């Protein structure tokens, strides 16, 4: 219970939507209740019907009402059930639409435009799964539980109004299977679920490790070690599953045992209550037959409840996302064209880091200048880029565009910076739609011109669907070089004055790399370019090279100067050209 309250204490994902779609929710619960009610009523009515008929009344009129009711309930039950299932799915899917928008907006606030890998994609898939879990929480736990309780209350009050002692007995007996056992299941399963999660996690990590390193395992010939490594978690999982199964079987048996007691109580009660007259005795069969369909929804309540720990993890994870939304900074815009990008004494330390990742960097960049930034991985190049575009707030110093702080220009950022990174993302739609993202107001002709400018006209027009070709998931219809070119076309349409190239050629072969770089610098000759690169191919395109080491610049100048004056640069350059 305490856990439950803790989970929902700062909940923004479950409760608000229960309130928002209250009307539909009540409808779902009503339909669910009516389904089971009709099922019980059918048997109740049928029991009465044949008991009455067996008295051989003089006229058919005596059983006319039960005959009509039998047919009515017989049809009502499946109809209610059908409508209930449709309504509940509709309700859940509505919520999913809201969830998706909300999750998107939450993630959007934290996303950075500078990104080195799509590894975070896996985290996003987990979040997408969490939403599905919450979907199931409603369909498999919340709805059946609430409907079960409604029915429980109905039975207790119904019987209690005839005889309060039996009513209290029902309250206690059925309370065991609708309240006590679900709670017990949550408690037992919570512990087991936690353990299972750990073991599965271990198995999953080990197995991924083994599969990814399979080449090494194979060559090393260590077959037995490979197999042995998984023996322990496999055994543990098996033991746990066994426990879980045994628990479930005996729990179901116990539920049935309580149902038996309930039936016996009702039987003995009706033996006392309804045996005064013949017409009263007709009710005996009615009650006895109704009991089984009426309690059928109680049978699965414990199982639904025991899934709760899985859902709780998901709910807590998505709720954790919300905490810590950043403060808003006042936004302004530029009235005049870009004149200067000034970086003043820029310093940055991650809040959980120990040392400064960027240390007192200052530089000015003017329209049309082209700067290359080099250095080993981990020296702070991408942090530096994030600071420039304003994805991170500097610990000290500032980035100014025309004397205005970049942090105040976030709303107009896309009119200032165009970014081409290592793996530009293509969305799973057409070529045309993807390129048009650069400028959503561009005409078809402008999009085609941009594609022609990056040299893809012939390729695209040779495809059967031409510009309407689907790029497929993550753009895999096209090669790495082609994807870069399509993104470049997007940037051409975007037409921002400053272009950031974040190692765009890292996964390309040298021939493709050379062609792409030639194209980039040819098309963007009038733009300001900040280019992070890991080697020296195409370095002749820039007029300034800076080497970054431990968050600082250590070697800088034009490539020509550096080649003449710096032995280290000369050596690296010759190495890159294959002259050494």
């Amino acid at each position: 219970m305490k856990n439950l309250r803790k989970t929902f204490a700062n909940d923004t994902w479950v409760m608000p939507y229960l309130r928002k779609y209250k009307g539909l929710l009540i409808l779902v619960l009503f339909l669910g209740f009516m389904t089971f009610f009709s099922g019980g009523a059918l048997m109740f009515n049928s029991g009465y019907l044949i008991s009455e008929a067996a008295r051989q009344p003089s006229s058919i009129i005596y059983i006319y009402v039960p005959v009509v009711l039998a047919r009515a309930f017989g049809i009502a039950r499946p109809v209610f059930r059908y409508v209930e299932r449709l309504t509940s799915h509709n309700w859940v899917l509505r919520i999913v639409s809201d969830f998706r928008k909300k999750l998107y907006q939450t993630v959007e606030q934290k996303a950075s435009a500078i990104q080195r890998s799509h590894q975070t994609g896996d985290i996003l898939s987990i979040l997408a799964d969490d939403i599905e879990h919450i979907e199931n929480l409603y369909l498999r736990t919340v709805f059946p539980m609430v409907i079960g309780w409604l029915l429980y209350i109905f039975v207790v009050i119904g019987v209690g109004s005839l005889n309060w002692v039996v009513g209290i007995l029902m309250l206690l007996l059925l309370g065991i299977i609708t309240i006590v056992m679900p709670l017990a299941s949550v408690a037992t399963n919570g512990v087991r679920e936690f353990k299972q999660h750990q073991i599965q996690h271990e198995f999953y990590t080990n197995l991924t490790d083994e599969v990814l390193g399979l080449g090494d395992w194979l060559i090393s010939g260590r077959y037995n070690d490979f197999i042995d490594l998984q023996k322990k978690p496999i055994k543990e999982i098996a033991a746990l599953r066994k426990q879980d199964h045994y628990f479930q079987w005996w729990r179901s048996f116990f539920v049935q045992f309580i149902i038996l007691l309930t039936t016996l109580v009702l039987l003995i009660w009706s033996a006392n209550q309804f045996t005064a007259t013949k017409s009263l005795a007709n009710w005996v069969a009615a009650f006895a037959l109704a009991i089984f369909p009426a309690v059928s929804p109680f049978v699965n309540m414990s199982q639904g409840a025991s899934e709760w720990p899985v859902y709780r993890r998901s709910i807590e994870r998505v709720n954790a996302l919300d905490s810590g939304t950043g403060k808003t900074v006042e936004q302004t815009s530029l009235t005049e064209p870009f004149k200067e990008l000034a970086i003043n004494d820029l310093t940055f330390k991650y809040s959980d880091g120990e040392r400064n990742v960027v240390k007192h960097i200052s530089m000015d960049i003017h329209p049309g200048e082209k700067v290359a930034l080099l250095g080993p991985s981990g020296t702070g190049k991408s942090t530096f880029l994030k600071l420039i575009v304003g994805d991170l707030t500097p610990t000290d110093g500032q980035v100014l565009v025309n004397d205005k702080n970049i942090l105040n220009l976030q709303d107009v950022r896309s009119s200032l910076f165009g970014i081409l990174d290592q793996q530009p993302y293509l969305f799973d739609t057409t070529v045309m739609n993807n390129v048009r993202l650069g400028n959503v107001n561009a005409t078809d002709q402008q999009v085609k011109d941009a594609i022609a400018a990056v040299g893809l006209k012939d390729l695209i027009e040779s495809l059967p669907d031409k510009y309407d070709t689907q790029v497929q998931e993550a753009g895999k219809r096209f090669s790495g070089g082609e994807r870069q070119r399509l993104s470049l076309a997007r940037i051409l349409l975007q037409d921002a004055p400053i272009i950031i190239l974040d190692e765009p050629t890292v996964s390309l072969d040298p021939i493709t790399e050379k062609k792409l770089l030639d194209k980039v610098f040819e098309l963007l000759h009038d733009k300001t370019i900040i280019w992070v690169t890991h080697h020296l191919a195409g370095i002749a395109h820039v007029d300034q090279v800076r080497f970054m080491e431990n968050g600082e610049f250590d070697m800088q100048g034009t490539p020509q100067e550096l080649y003449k004056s710096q032995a280290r640069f000369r050596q690296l350059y010759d190495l890159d050209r294959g002259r050494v």
Partner: protein
Amino acid sequence: MIDKRLFDLPGMKKYAAILGILVFIQAIAIIAQARALSIAIVNLWNLQSINTIVGPTIVFTVAFLARHLLTVTENRFLFPFVEKTSGDMREDLMAKIFRLGPAEIDKRGTGNIVTMALEGIDQVQTYLMLVIIKILDMSITPWLILLYVLFLRWEQAIFLFAIFPIIILFMIILGLAAQSKADRQYEGYQRLSNHFVDTLRGLPTLKQLGLSKRYADNVYEVSESYRKETMSTLKIALTSTFALDFFTTLSIAVVAVFLGFDLMDGKVMLLPALTILVLAPEYFLPIRNFANDYHATLNGKNAMSAVLDVLHEPEMTEREVLPDLKWNNDSTLKLNQVSLTYPDTKEPTLKDISIDIKGMKKIGIIGASGSGKSTLINLIGGFLSPDSHDSITINGQTVPHLNQANWQKNFLYIPQNPYLFHATLADNISFYVADATEAAITNAADKAGLTDWIKTLPDGLNTMIGEGARTVSGGQAQRIALARAFLDPNRKVLLFDEPTAHLDIETEASLKKDILPVFNDHLVFFATHRLHWIGEMDYVLVMDHGRLVEQGTPDELAKRNGDYVKLRAEMEAADL
């Protein structure tokens, strides 16, 4: 719903037979329970004293308990079998993964394989638990009940018997209609549900383009149109369950009404009529249970089919053709017109490759992307099998492929991103040499240029690295792979597949200094884009579109003015 291979599982027939007997006894308990309850009710209906129902109530209680205890017994009896079957399946799968090797994993995806071994096998277990008992229940219980009803009153038995095929027929007709509609929409569905993950993954790009805020509404709209489409399909898809529900419930109502009329006419007594009415829901229960668990069993069935498919995947056999081998200066490796075609493509990826290698040499492999460099390295490593089985010879011995245990003992493979295991640094270095001493490991790490870095680590060589532990940069990962080569003097063949492609030029320059010494006294295959490595090679293979277009020493090739010269010119940047 039922995979035919289910019945081929070892021991299945014996278990099915015993379970059949248990289900049979259970069906008798169900009938006894209904009968005893009816007797008790009829006695009360006749206004007899409460003492007259004591006997029937006891029978009812015993039968009821027996019925549910039998459910537990059936499950407990079956479980060891299911546990063993699924456990064996999991172990077989692991062994199979090992034998199939990395090429197969690439094809199926690491995630798929891991999920299959973990969740897939769990689903198989659930499936086996559910499906065997349910099938038996459906094929025994209703018929026994029907037989009993027939004995009580044949008219109702015939009605119940006749309604059964009608239910199944309607379920099939409606099920098929729903299926074809669902199939038509499935592709669209997939796209819509992927759209969300697609959008999340592309968020940085949307942010770069200044569109990220506006896209929130798009996410909502797409999701809503997905909802509408889903609902229209569900309306039909759920009709199949509706039909089952409708016919079974209505049948009970009809039985009740007809019994009512017959009772009025005195054609039947209350006891048999009540017994039939109590048994009617039990008659339909097995098929309803079967339909309710349809989706759970469907997932399980698909999971089992997927696992069995992997287990039946053909694998490279004849791994022991090559006798004991220790690569030395006189050893030879000959490729004679080797071609390689991937299973799902028509065009061969490698065409007529012929190479003749003797002793220790440094062999560079160059070519544009897609020219077949990596495929050639994978062929030499034995991860891929050539099209014909007589085109490779080692020391004069013809082998069908290079996935030879004795060949694999002779080489090390160093790819672009060497895989680091979640283990200590020392364990990673000594992965190939189980009995390496700490001194030997330290020495190898030193030769690979790792000493300075190790000093900065909290636990030195005993620091945990790999996934979820300390991250290791690309340059250091290469050095760890290099240390493996230094540690194992018995592996004389080194396969490099673009080891420096992802490294920055400074890291590459310093790594090169440490790599060069290991080249001595080894047979080296070195696939690369970077031109400066060519100068270190004795022999160069130039690949183009899967063909070996030129081979020779760098000097020879430079003079020939052919593909090699052309390729170099294309790769070189303009001078400063």
